[in-house]
C-alpha cells in the first residue's frame, strides 16, 4: 500500500482530522490495465476547503467522481458523513452537491426552470429567485443557460450544488477558463459557502487558487497522492530541503496590475 505522507508541522489544522466528513481508504480504480487511482487514502475535515492538485491525468476527476458515487471504485472504501458511498449511494447523493468540470445543464432551459427541476430531484422547496440573487444572477432568471458567460455558468453551477443544503460540495476545476474578475468573484463565493459551514472539495490547476482558498491540499500524480498538507506546511517542507527561489523582489504581480487597471467588478453581466 502506498501510504500518503502526512505532515505534522505547525499550522496543520488538527481539528479537521478529529471530525472527518470524508474518509477515503486505499482507493483503487482501474480502467483495463491503467490504474487511474492507485491506492489513495485521505480524510477531509468538516468545514474544510480541501484541494486536490495535480497534472492532467493524475486521477483528480476520477477520485472526485468516486466520492460523488458517479463511478464505482475497483477496491477501497469511501465514507461520506459516515455513509458508505458504495452502499447507500442515494443517501450520499442527498448530502453532497456536485459541480462537473463543464456544463451539465439543458442549454434550452432558463435558469429558473433548471433550478425548479433540480429542486424536484432533490425533493426540496426553494425560492429560485433568492438563490439567483445570492449569486448575482437575478436578472438572468429567464435567460437560457447557453446564453450565459463563462463566469455566470460557473456561478449558476455553484448555485445548483447548494440547492438542497448539502454538507459537502465537490467542485471540479471551478475557475478554469474564467477571466480574473470572475475568478476573484468565485473565490469570494466559495469562501462564503465555506463560512456557512459547508465542506468544499475542489480540484484546480492554479497554485494561487489552492494557496488562497484551501485549508489543505493533496498533490496527486499518476493515481497516487504524493503529499498532503496545508499550503504553508508544504512550502515549509520544500524550503527545508534547502530550496531557494532566486530572489526577485516583486511587491505586485501582473494580476495585481490587471485588477488595478480593470477593476474587480464582474464583466459578464
Amino acid at each position, binding site marked *: 500500500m502506498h501510504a500518503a505522507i502526512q505532515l505534522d508541522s505547525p499550522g496543520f489544522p488538527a481539528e479537521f482530522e478529529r471530525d472527518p466528513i470524508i474518509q477515503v481508504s486505499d482507493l483503487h480504480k482501474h480502467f483495463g490495465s491503467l490504474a487511474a487511482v492507485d491506492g489513495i487514502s485521505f480524510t477531509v475535515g468538516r468545514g474544510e476547503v480541501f484541494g486536490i492538485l495535480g497534472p492532467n491525468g493524475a486521477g483528480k476527476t476520477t477520485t472526485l467522481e468516486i466520492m460523488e458515487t*458517479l463511478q464505482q471504485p475497483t477496491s477501497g472504501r469511501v465514507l461520506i458523513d459516515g455513509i458508505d458511498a458504495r452502499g447507500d449511494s442515494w443517501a450520499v*447523493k442527498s448530502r453532497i452537491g*456536485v459541480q462537473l468540470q463543464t456544463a451539465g*445543464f439543458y442549454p*434550452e*432551459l432558463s435558469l429558473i426552470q433548471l433550478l425548479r*427541476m433540480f429542486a424536484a430531484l432533490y*425533493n*426540496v422547496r426553494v425560492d429560485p429567485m433568492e438563490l439567483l440573487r445570492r449569486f448575482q444572477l437575478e436578472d438572468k432568471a429567464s435567460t437560457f443557460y447557453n446564453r450565459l458567460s463563462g463566469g455566470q455558468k460557473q456561478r449558476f453551477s455553484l448555485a445548483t450544488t447548494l440547492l438542497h443544503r448539502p*454538507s459537502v460540495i465537490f467542485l471540479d476545476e471551478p475557475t478554469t477558463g474564467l477571466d480574473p474578475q470572475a475568478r476573484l468573484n468565485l473565490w469570494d463565493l466559495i469562501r462564503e459557502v465555506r463560512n456557512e459551514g459547508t465542506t468544499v472539495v475542489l480540484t484546480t490547476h492554479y497554485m494561487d487558487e489552492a494557496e488562497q482558498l484551501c485549508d489543505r491540499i493533496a498533490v496527486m500524480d499518476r493515481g497516487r497522492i504524493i503529499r498532503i498538507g496545508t499550503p504553508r506546511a508544504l512550502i515549509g517542507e520544500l524550503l527545508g530541503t534547502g530550496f531557494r527561489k532566486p530572489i526577485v523582489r516583486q511587491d505586485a504581480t501582473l494580476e495585481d496590475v490587471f485588477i488595478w487597471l480593470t477593476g474587480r467588478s464582474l464583466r459578464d453581466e
Partner: protein
Amino acid sequence: MNERRSRVVVSARRPNELRSLAALTLYPLLAMSRNVSTIAFGFLFPVVFIAVFGLIGDRGSSLHLGIAPSSAEGPVYAGLSQLPGLDLALADDQELAREMRAGKLDGIVEIRDGQVLLTVNTASPQAQVSRLWLEAALDRMNVQEAGITSPQHVLRVQEVAGRHERYIDFALPGQIGFALLSTAIFGTVFGLIYLKKALILKRLFATPVHGITILLGQGIARLILALAQTVLILAVGILAFGFQLANGWATALEILVLVVIGLFAFLGFGLFIAGRTTDENAASPLTNLFTLPQFLLSGVFFPTDAFPSWVRMIADVLPLTFFNAAMRQIATEGAGLQDVLPAILALCAWGVFSYVLAARTFKWV
C-alpha cells in the same frame, strides 16, 4: 471555527420519485420543444408530406382522359361527360397522342357507333382504374337501356367500382408511422447522446434520482410529443384534405392507443443505439440502417404489394410494417384494436426484443 461548524445543516430528505419523474418529464419536454430537429422531423415534415400527398391525391382522384372532337357527341359521350371525377379533355388526335406520351393523360377515348375504344397509358397508375370506370359507366348505361328488372345488385357493384380511394387515405396513416419512428429513433438516439456528451446525464446522476426514472421521463416526454404529432397530422388531414376517420372519434382514440403501443415498441431501439455510444457519428450508420429500410419498405410512402417476394419477406417482419398495416386498418377500414391484435403482439415482441438488447448494452456515460 466553532461558529462555522455550528451552522452545519444536515438535511437529507428522501427523494420523491413521483416528483422527480414529473420534473424529468416536463423539463426535458420543454427542452425538446425548443429543439429545431424535433420540430422539423416530428411536426413540420409530416405536415408538408401530408400537404404534398393531399394535393397529389386530389389530382389523382379524377381521371384524365382525352377525346377527339369527332367522338364528342351522342348519348354515350353525354353519359361519360356527366361522370363525377372524370376529366374529359377535348383535343385533336395528334395533340392527344402527344399528351399521352408526356404522361398527362391516363387514356384516350374514342366513340364510334356506341362502341367505346379506350387506349390506356400503361405507364399511368390509373390505367386499370380508367378501364374499370369506363366499364362501370357503360354497364350502367346498358342496364338502363335494357330496363333490367333487378337493378339493386348491379348498382351495388357499380358503387364499389366507383369508390374514391384517394392517395391521402393511404398517405396519412403512413405519415403517422413516419413521424412516430422519427421521434422514437432519431429523437431518442441523438437526444440521449447529446445528454451524455453535454454531461447533462451525469449531472442528473449526481442527484438522488434513479437512472430508470430519467429514462422513463424521457420516454413519457417523447410519448407526449408523439401524441401531439399524431393529433396534428390528423387535424391537418381532416381539416385541409378531407381525410375521413372510419368511425369518427372512436377511430381517433384507437389511433392514439396504437401510437402509444408503437412508440414504446420503437423506443427500445432508440435506447439500444444511443446506449452503446457517446458519439453521434458512431450512432449515425446504425440509426439509418434501422430507419431507412423501414421508411422505404414498410408502406410509408407506397404500398408494399409491388415489391418482389423476397423484399416483401423482409418488409413484412419490420416493426413499422406491422404498425402501418394496423394503422391503415383502424384509420381507413374501421377496424378496432381487437382486429389488429396480431400486429399489436408483433409490435410488443419487437419491443421486448429491443429492450432486452438495450438493457444488455446500455452505457450511462
